[in-house]
């Protein structure tokens, strides 16, 4: 946030607050992911079948699931899966997207034409649908979820970076670097791509929320993380069966997803406003 113009007025303050709230939520989730298993009251696999489906109590704050496992402990462990999937998917997608987008934007011509057509076709698919289709054929597993979400995720970054690079290519300092004889990789890496990074970082932050939501959607449909691994989406999927007699199975994992995604949305919005004060409304 060092490049941010000094905040002034209630609006700027609210922006900072948005960022702070987002950072707080995400920070807590990261903490839960790192130390969760250590502070969790129970093992995620330990069962108390006599108390299965029991609601929240002093001993089990979030209650117990259909196999008598402590839901709080499993929600804490689920944070690790969600953040891991988000981080890996966003890292792969943004790396591939930045490479493809900068090559398309910088070289233009036939290279751009060909890459842009591929991007158009992939964007013509609703993203999650393609992920569902891929996981359906590859088989449900955590790694296949990551592969499917990365394969659809890079397209958005590529389009964003392509646009940024097209603009940056004509900037004076880029022209100057070329005129001074800098090699193409050097011009791209040192001068062109850095101009796209603020926009990429905003998209990556919002993308974390998107990837977490997508993983949960796939797991909810039974196509993602497989039991007994505690994933919030899988927990919701099993909770659905007990909606009538044990709604707490649905409430807590869903709340965790909503709060974490809200956190990343806050963080992304705050980041965008901080990096581009003109867009602040």
């Amino acid at each position, binding site marked *: 946030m060092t490049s941010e113009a000094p905040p002034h007025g209630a609006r700027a303050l609210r922006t900072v607050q948005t960022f702070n709230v987002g950072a707080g939520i995400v920070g807590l989730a990261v903490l839960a992911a790192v130390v969760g298993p250590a502070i969790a009251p129970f093992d995620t696999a330990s069962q108390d079948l006599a108390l299965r489906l029991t609601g929240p109590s002093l001993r089990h704050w979030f209650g117990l699931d259909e196999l008598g496992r402590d839901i709080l402990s499993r929600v804490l462990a689920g944070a690790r899966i969600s953040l891991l999937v988000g981080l890996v998917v966003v890292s792969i997608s943004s790396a591939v997207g930045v490479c493809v987008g900068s090559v398309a934007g910088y070289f233009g011509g036939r290279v751009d034409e060909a890459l842009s057509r591929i991007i*158009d076709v992939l964007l*013509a698919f609703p*993203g*999650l649908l393609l992920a*569902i289709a891929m996981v359906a*054929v590859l088989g449900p597993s955590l790694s296949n979820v990551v592969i499917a979400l990365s394969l659809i995720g890079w397209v958005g970054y590529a389009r964003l970076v392509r646009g940024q690079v097209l603009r940056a290519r004509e900037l004076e300092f880029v022209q100057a670097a070329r005129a001074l004889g800098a090699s193409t990789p050097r011009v791209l890496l040192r001068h062109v791509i850095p101009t796209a990074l603020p926009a990429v970082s905003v998209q990556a932050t919002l993308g974390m929320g998107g990837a977490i939501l997508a993983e949960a959607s796939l797991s*909810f449909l039974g196509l993602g993380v497989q039991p007994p691994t505690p994933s919030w989406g899988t927990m919701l999927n099993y909770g659905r069966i007990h*909606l009538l007699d044990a709604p707490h199975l649905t409430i807590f994992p869903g709340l965790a997803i*909503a709060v974490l995604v809200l956190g990343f949305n806050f963080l992304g919005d705050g980041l965008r406003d901080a990096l581009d004060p003109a867009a602040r409304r």
Partner: protein
Amino acid sequence: MLTVPVLFGVATLVFSLIHLIPGDPAQAMLGETAPQADVDELRHRLGLDRPLLEQYLAFLSGAVRGDLGTSLRTGEPVVGQVASRVPATAELAAAAMIVALLVALPLGIAAAVWRGTAIDASATALALAGVSIPNFWLGPLLAIVFAVELGWLPVSGRGTLAHLVLPAISLGGALAAILARMTRATLLEELREPYVQAARGRGASRARAVLRHAFRNSLIPIVTLLGLQFGAVLTGAVITETIFAWPGIGRLLVQSIGFRDYPLVQGCILFIAVTYVAVNLVTDLVYGVLDPRIRFE
């Protein structure tokens, strides 16, 4: 006109799905324990024993003629099965979009007109919450409150208007949130324009200046977003239909994935993707109506 190459690309992707199956697709569809004779027969029936290019051309020409093969489970034509589910999904998608518009437009307009007030803050907070709440959580929550606790609405199935309410709200919620944010942002931009002041100067009431002048001009980005989000609505329908046992294409897709009925999976995916492309084309054409300055060659 990018539509034709895009459709071609979409069909190619859907065709390649079956070839992404690890190992022998026919074996995967029938299970590991299936007798070899059955596997060979299925492989032949699906044309998987023919050269790849021949399979591809057969798939494309079939798709153009509306022949996507038969379902492995029921033996019925895929196109017929998908078509029988279209009305349910169309009904749900339309209802979700209506719900979204009914919520988002007043909310977005109020937030822009009373910018910086408590109304704006609560509308913005509501919109952010709506974007973050997954529909596979919102749906069950709505069912817990309105079907289980209050008993006002049915928990699943299709039939009466009452059956439609919960699925439509659950599917339209996120769209409403996104639309409300967009409406607020674009309307704020328009309200700063001199023509709005001019309208006020000529004696137009505030409501008229906002609704007849400013709002009308902010419709283009709203319609664009609505078109772009249609894909999300169709994908969301896959989840919503699963939650509420709504007999649409989304549920058919999830069921056929469960049965490894890949021809039917391909049919559902192709239908959803082609619908999405078509809606985007219609969105582009609607621009011309909304803004006479935009004309297509």
